[in-house]
């Protein structure tokens, strides 16, 4: 990777920098040479309608809203805003295709459609990655290596289940539920669409999906892919809009199943909205996951894990390892190495292949992150931020660590959803576990130690749905994901991910 010092090209020669004596201060002393991903081959329409019954249609209200690139605030496209009338059309289309086509089709044929979709996504992977990064602000490196391949893999995995469902539930005969209303967030737009749509279709349900208002483009590209794959009209309908559109959708009488990924607050509202109905619900909500570093861990590897845990996707990750818990005996060295490593993080243009941390997804989210950092300082936390320079346009946040925090601090108890890590120390294993479990959340957790028995013991004590031991933020279609306690209910991925979409 090419580096330049004070605007001078280094010509790719090996740099000799004495680590720990003079840390690499990127953004001040050192900069990478730009390596921009091209976007010429990608076509974004000036405006997108609603995808209902296999066609893009005008919204009933004729209203459109802008979707912007959060890295430069430029408008990318105009997006239709669906109202109750449109929601009704979409649900009716889904119901018709459920009754007449999809529920009558053999699992084998359903599966072939899903395989087709997966393959077209792979063919169009670069385009999807570019659109994902432009619309959401995540580094192109992550879109290309994580979001898009995993989304395609998810379709490929559940495609194979469609004609094998009787093997998934011993002693039972699974049947679909009907029409699924699915509302997804802006942090992994296409991947979340795949997590929702693939298992629903494999089990024979039809879908109305609402993507987040700040990141609708890849879901609309996915609609194009459904057309390309000849998926029967109405099997998946994609309606765009804000929270009001989502509220209309989940409370529509024609919906049998609600699946939501987003904040715990909104999840509870949705739960309230469907009270007294027979609608089944799956919730993937917030988290405040603990990342435990024990003194017998491989410290350098653990530091990489901490960085990946909290700075992956700007910390816009529900399972982010946002609470670092370090055993007291290694706290100093872990923090020194962490701060040194953080200085090397490249913050900036998401389309630059060097970029580690891209743009914050929206102005609103940036303000929320800034509010939490201010709250942490007010409550007495010690602040560390890297010395990177932030671009003048767009929404950004510096990689941030808040140390010397107490368990009761808001920044320790509440989900920030940004590149902000809190640090606490512990002495005994019991104390570490106690602190790890001491929030209303229970989505994920991390454990770093080279002692195998300790891994099994600690991971079994963590009240969380996913535990990463000596690694962090890994995802796979075969691997169930979902929370304990107020982090949600139900699982997505793996064999467990079928259950929320079937009845017996």
């Amino acid at each position, binding site marked *: 990777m090419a580096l330049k010092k004070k605007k001078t090209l280094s010509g790719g020669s090996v740099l000799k920098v004495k680590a720990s004596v003079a840390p690499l201060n990127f953004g001040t002393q050192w900069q990478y040479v730009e390596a921009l991903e091209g976007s010429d081959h990608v076509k974004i329409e000036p405006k997108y309608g609603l995808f209902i019954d296999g066609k893009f249609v005008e919204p009933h209200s004729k209203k459109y809203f802008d979707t912007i690139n959060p890295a430069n605030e430029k408008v990318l496209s105009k997006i239709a805003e669906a109202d109750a009338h449109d929601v009704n059309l979409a649900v009716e289309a889904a119901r018709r295709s459920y009754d007449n086509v999809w529920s009558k089709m053999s699992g084998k044929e359903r599966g072939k459609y899903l395989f087709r979709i997966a393959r077209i996504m792979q063919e169009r992977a670069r385009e999807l990655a570019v659109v994902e990064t432009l619309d959401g602000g995540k580094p192109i490196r992550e879109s290309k290596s994580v979001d898009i391949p995993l989304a395609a893999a998810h379709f490929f995995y559940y495609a194979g289940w469609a004609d094998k469902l009787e093997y998934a539930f011993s002693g039972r005969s699974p049947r679909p539920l009907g029409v699924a209303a699915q509302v997804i967030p802006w942090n992994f737009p296409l991947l979340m669409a795949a997590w929702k749509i693939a298992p629903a279709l494999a089990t024979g349900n039809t879908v109305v999906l609402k993507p987040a208002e700040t990141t609708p483009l890849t879901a609309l590209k996915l609609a194009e892919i459904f057309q390309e794959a000849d998926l029967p009209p109405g099997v998946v309908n994609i309606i765009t809009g804000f929270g009001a559109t989502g509220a209309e959708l989940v409370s529509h009488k024609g919906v049998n199943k609600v699946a939501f990924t987003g904040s715990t607050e909104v999840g509870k509202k949705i739960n*309230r909205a469907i009270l007294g109905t027979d609608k089944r619900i799956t919730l993937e909500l917030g988290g405040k996951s603990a990342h435990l570093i024990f003194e017998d861990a491989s410290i350098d590897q653990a530091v990489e894990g901490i960085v990946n845990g909290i700075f992956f996707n700007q910390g816009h990750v529900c399972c982010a390892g946002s609470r670092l818990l370090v055993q007291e005996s290694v706290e100093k060295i872990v923090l020194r190495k962490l701060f040194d490593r953080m200085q090397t993080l490249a913050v900036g243009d998401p389309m630059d292949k060097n970029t580690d941390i891209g743009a914050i997804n929206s102005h609103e989210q940036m303000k929320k992150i800034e509010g939490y950092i201010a709250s942490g300082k007010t409550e007495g936390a010690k602040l560390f931020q890297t010395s990177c320079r932030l671009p003048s346009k767009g929404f950004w946040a510096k990689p941030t660590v808040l140390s010397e925090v107490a368990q009761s601090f808001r920044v320790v108890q509440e989900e920030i959803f940004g590149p902000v890590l809190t640090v606490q120390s512990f002495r005994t294993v019991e104390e570490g576990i106690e602190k790890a479990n001491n929030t209303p959340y229970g989505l994920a957790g991390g454990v770093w130690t080279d002692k195998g028995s300790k891994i099994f013991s600690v991971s079994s004590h963590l009240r969380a749905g*996913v535990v990463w031991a000596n690694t962090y933020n890994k995802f796979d279609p075969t691997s169930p994901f979902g929370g304990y306690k107020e982090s949600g209910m139900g699982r997505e991925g*793996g064999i467990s991910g079928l259950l929320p979409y079937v009845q017996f």
Partner: protein
Amino acid sequence: MSRQENSDRLGVLKTYKLYIDGKFPRTESGRYFKLKAADGKILANVCQGSRKDVRDAVTAARTAFAKWSRQTAYLRGQILYRVAEMLEGRRLQFTEELVEQGVTRDKAIAEVSESIDTLVYYAGWSDKYPQIFSAVNPVASSHFNFSMPEPTGVVCVLAPELPSLLGLVRAIAPVIIGGNTAVVLVSSKQPLSGITFGEVLHTSDLPSGVVNLVSGFRDELIKTMASHMDVNAILLCAEKDRVGDSVVVQEQAIENLKRVSVWKDIEANPYRIMEFQEIKTTWHPVGA
């Protein structure tokens, strides 16, 4: 036991109390309701359990959860089997008690037998449901990845009114065999079987606090059980004449996202164990 004396000896009547934390306290409220036989004879002054009794029971259940959830499947299976043994030894007592409460003798005998068999059935599941519902996931990276069920935590159970004994056993067996602890409101129509069942549990090596039994009325306690912030799940055994219960439970459960199960029957199967389990997935790198 039967209150009818066939000699001139004066019978010793039993005081029916609650079963909380391995003890048999009276309700802290000091309240009671009269349970009468069909012929109007008073069978017992039954404790009318209070919200405070429920909260005490939740505290006991939470404390017990730490150890019970980490016992081996083998041990939990043996203890549940021991409960079956103890119930078998008290067949006559439970049959008589059901008859006193208005069940015909034939049905009472069958209900006790089915209750015992249910305990044996779930005892056998203890070390098998994790095998059926776990998975090693073939992830596309160099990691070892597995998913397995873990108990949800403290579970409140609104047991069926009828059948009072079999319904109770069908409700609590899948909850506790999976490592959860339970706070149970027993039948108010036939409360004696539920309360006496506490004596069976107490003599079965079941640790204190794993099952806590409260007698009283749904109208008064349903909200407390469904809204308690230290309860992880609630099982509502639906009653045909109480259609509003499920909305009450679901609404109160939202605040801390309790898992809600509503049963319209008391079928026994391993999926009922899984209703009170969470799937945990663990990753570890594979490499030198």
